[in-house]
């Protein structure tokens, strides 16, 4: 699983309802503050990632504000997948 694959999955998910404009740097985008995933739907997003990559987020990961940044989330998913190996 490459970073590119994960990026594709994550960016496709956050754009389910609204396309992120081209001029926005998607890797530094806070997708919750930007309204792409609202705070109520955030937990669903996490569960979808868990199902897709067979990984588990700890409660503190779910609360970690850094993981609301696309790039940070992608790095985190990659590290979790690598840990599993």
């Amino acid at each position: 699983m490459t970073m590119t694959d994960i990026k594709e999955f994550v960016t496709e998910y956050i754009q389910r309802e609204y396309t992120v404009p081209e001029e926005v740097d998607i890797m530094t985008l806070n997708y919750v503050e930007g309204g792409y995933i609202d705070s109520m739907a955030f937990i669903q997003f996490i569960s979808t990632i868990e199902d897709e990559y067979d990984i588990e987020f700890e409660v503190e990961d779910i609360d970690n504000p850094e993981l609301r940044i696309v790039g940070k989330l992608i790095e985190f998913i990659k590290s979790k997948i690598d840990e599993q190996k």
Partner: protein
Amino acid sequence: MRSQLADLFYKNAAEMPQKQAIWCDGKTATYSEMADLVSRYSNFLVSKGVQYGDHVAIPMNNSIESVALFFTAADLGVCLVPLNPTLPLDSIKVAMQSGDMKHLIARKSFLSDCAKKGGVYVPGITICLDGEFEGAFPFSEVATMPTTRPACEHIKGNESLILTMTSGSTGTPKPIDISQQNKVDRSLAHIRVYGLIKEDRILAATPLYHSLAERLVILPLILGATSILLPRFTPAIWLKCAEEQKPTFTIAVSAQLAQILELIKQTEAQGIDSFRSIVSSSALLEEKVKIELIDRLQCEFHEMYGTSETSTATDICFQAARNKQKSVGLPFDEAEIRILRDDEDTECAVGEVGEIAVKSKLTCKGYYKLKNMMDMATTNGFFRTGDLGYVDEDGYLYFAGRKKELIITGAINVYPNDVDAVVKQLTAVEDCAAFSYPDERLGEVVALAIVVKEDCELNERTVKMYCARNLADFQQPHKIFFVDMLPKNAMGKLQRNRILSHIKTMGLD
């Protein structure tokens, strides 16, 4: 006859082709461009076999395309069924069945997500809004369609235009059936009550799959005003839009207004001076929030009361009725209010709390294919809202709580039974109950009290993830409490309204 709703819009397009019709997420369209869009969509749907009376499901986002589709539907005599795109697939399937959907218009991500989970079946056509998807017609084909208006010539006005789905995931959905005439009448009533004019810039900031935003985008386009459609709501996006797009009128959800005020105070935002009038809906706004907002925005401030079934029933202007601050106002000309006692027949005296019942010319056609349910909720032509209230000696209505077991989070109704049914599927759960928990940002949030089976273990994370997979976003529990028992009466009936105090007594909150 042609659709009156579409006619009013096309007339504005003919008279003011260059006027800005709509703004959404940085894009704009003039009346002329919007009319071309509506006509192209109509020609596209007709060319694919969509016919008068067909029901078209659309997991709907806030966009210019979605707004154009409302007018396309009106012009063709088609019924649009906007769905919340975040609903779990099972709920989408139930909603599609209960609304007799024939066709589906969706974004690619929705279609591919559905395909992964077994797909949804529609007997008619599927259209992919963005890009290509196997088995679906690409929406990009509309660009090749003519801009002539292929209006249906035998619209009577009583055709269903929109079915609004009102229930959650496991309960039976109650599709509120709104006719073309309903939409026109509702728009005209709001134009009159709020004195709206062509120069107004009307802001819609809630999802288009709810009746409030539908009203706020259709209304300006039949009036000849400008529609400002927020793509999605966060207080920051709302403020930026208010500064840049200079809206003059909006109907907002009270929970949104509280969040907006908070941000204005934090950022000391200036330059939001364009509003002439703001209406707060869905729940009574706290008085201090109201006063601070008026101070900051310097505009007329209204509260309204209504339901999706009846549309707005009462309105009050804060500045005009200073001695009625806690009231939700006087009835619209179209509406009559009665307060009913528990026997559902006799009327309450002045000041006596009972169930608010509304008889209005703006009431919907009924619940689609559920005539009995509408009849059961109606007494002598008055729709019983499930809300409690009273009327004072001057006829002003006061809201006093809810009779129905309902949690309203950010203006969205959550039926606690729907949440209970899903959580009870967890094998470690002995008993559980969802209940309303006060929240500064959303007014209320869903909380959950769970009794775990003896010799079983269950943690918060497991419950949250199970809910994430099986409930819609607005139904997610924000707080979870593990308790030894739930409060029940002598007959063993759950007393949901006592759970919060029970938890506080136990020192769990």
